């Protein structure tokens, strides 16, 4: 298993605000890792550190290199989409392809053209004239045509309608991702990506709250839907959270005893969003 990103004790403060506080994590090849947190949790700061776009304290290796000193070598193998609409507005689509073709040694122009031909993006349009969704499609086309080892996406679908968002992740999963590629994505629309993620990292106020693979989340966390009369019994077992849904009480347990829980009611793997809320609340409590 190849480790692409290795961070230990990663810290960064903006004035008195700690954007990252002793964060340690690893990202391995062939995974799709979701970095999930509320606004201002430090997601973007963590990505910027990985991409060598900001200074930080602590140790960080990306592809074995230090992003502070060797960022332009790292960028040979790392691609990123920072946000929607950062492509230069004055550039025409065709010239954008020309340019990346000249500037990126791993860019395969025909792949980008092929992808764009399946969209409504026209080659001689100016980027400034494209809709937000089309700009994202163009950016995706550029990125997918680059033979990169790590793709970093920071809120890539922000401000897009649901059709574009679905299409974006579908394309990424079907046409781009394979065991040699790795994707690191931040979003706060967790529901949209939870079924494509292999790993999740929860981050809150600069600290990591959870760092698990999706498989082990299923082993570790369990959601039990309990009839009101058994609620007190469930509470005795120390749930992470409790909420009411359709007249039943829904409890979330971490490392619960499966036998005991099965007695209480219907068990299932919790959604990432619910788990996230529970973990953040647990930390605040």
């Amino acid at each position, binding site marked *: 298993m190849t480790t692409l990103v290795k961070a230990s004790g990663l810290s960064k403060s903006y004035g008195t605000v700690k954007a990252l506080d002793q964060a340690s994590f690893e990202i391995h090849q062939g995974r799709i890792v979701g970095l999930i947190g509320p606004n201002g949790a430090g997601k973007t700061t963590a990505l910027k550190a990985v991409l060598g776009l900001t200074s930080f304290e602590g140790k960080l290796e990306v592809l074995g290199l230090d992003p502070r000193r060797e960022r332009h070598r790292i960028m040979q193998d790392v691609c*990123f989409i920072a946000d929607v609409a950062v492509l*230069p*507005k*004055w550039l025409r689509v065709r010239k954008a392809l020309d340019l990346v073709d*000249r500037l990126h040694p791993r860019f395969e122009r025909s792949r980008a053209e092929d992808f764009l031909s399946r969209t409504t993006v026209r080659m001689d349009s100016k980027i400034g004239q494209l809709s937000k969704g089309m700009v994202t499609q163009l950016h995706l086309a550029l990125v997918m045509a680059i033979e990169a080892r790590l793709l970093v996406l920071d809120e890539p679908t922000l401000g897009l309608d649901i059709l574009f968002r679905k299409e974006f992740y579908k394309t990424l999963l079907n046409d781009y991702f394979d065991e040699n590629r790795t994707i690191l994505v931040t979003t706060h629309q967790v529901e949209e990506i939870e079924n494509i993620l292999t790993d999740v990292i929860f981050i809150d106020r600069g600290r990591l709250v959870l760092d698990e693979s999706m498989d082990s989340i299923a082993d570790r966390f369990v959601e039990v839907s309990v009839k009101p009369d058994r609620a007190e019994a469930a509470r005795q077992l120390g749930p992470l959270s409790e909420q009411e849904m359709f007249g039943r009480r829904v409890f979330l347990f971490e490392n619960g005893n499966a036998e005991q829980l099965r007695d209480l009611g219907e068990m299932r793997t919790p959604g990432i969003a619910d788990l996230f809320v529970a973990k953040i609340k647990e930390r605040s409590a």
Partner: protein
Amino acid sequence: MSTIIALVRRELWEHRAIVFAPAIFGALFVLVNLLAAVGIVKIQIEAGDVDLAGVVGSLDALKAGALVQLGLALVAVWLNIVMVLVTLFYLLDCLYAERKDRSILFWKSLPLSDASVVASKLCTAALAIPLATLVVFVAAGLCMYLITGTAIQFAGSSLVLSAGPLAFAETVAFHLYALAVQSLWYLPLFCWLLLVSAWSRRAVLLWALLPPIAVIVVEQIALGTKHFATLLQERLIGVYPLAFTDDPARQQLVWRYEDEHADVDLQFSEGLLELVDPGRILGSPGLWGGILVAALFFAAAVWTRRYRDDT
């Protein structure tokens, strides 16, 4: 190197004014010239009390050549003013706009070192813009020479047309030299503007001008001297006295036009290239000191683009 070339091309795509501004001025000159030529022809046809043939008849080959060079020099000077303004605004914008519209994040997603990006901007200012201006100059100059030559031919003298090619070639070579030394001499100013462009959050022009003005004012108040102001003035206009000969024997006067009404006194030396004297400027501490300062500002601009984090 191919990276730099691709990046300079990208600058020309983005900053269309680099080509358009001088081209518009060049076209304007050609237009004015065309109207003037039509005027000459009209006078010739209506031939009132103006003895056009007499005026034209007083031309000799040297005067004809000087006439061509006079016209071209006027174009060259104006294009140069336009070029300096274009360069100023280009440099102030080139590292600032990409931060303002956040497209810097796209450029930073490509495997480019900040040094090569900043170098491409400097190459655009010091090489591409002068070359574009020279191309405009050659094109406009050629049109003007043909228009004027034909008009004077019509008025009865073929001397302008025949003296033109040599005079024209000389002027272009002269202009090329002037642009080259000017670019070298202006390097510290270019790099200062790059640094301001990479650093400033807003009001780039103000940030470019305020620090030097502040230094001048502080120096004046604290020490009562004007060294920095003199230095700056030297940097802005001091290149020409250094780049061209100061030997009076080589600045020989060969053609003088005096008009008692207009008080015009124009001088031309035989062979413009006689004036070219790279020895003094290449040996001047001003040039090399300037390049050193430019290198410092350049490094600071690269560092700022690399580590400034305001997106």
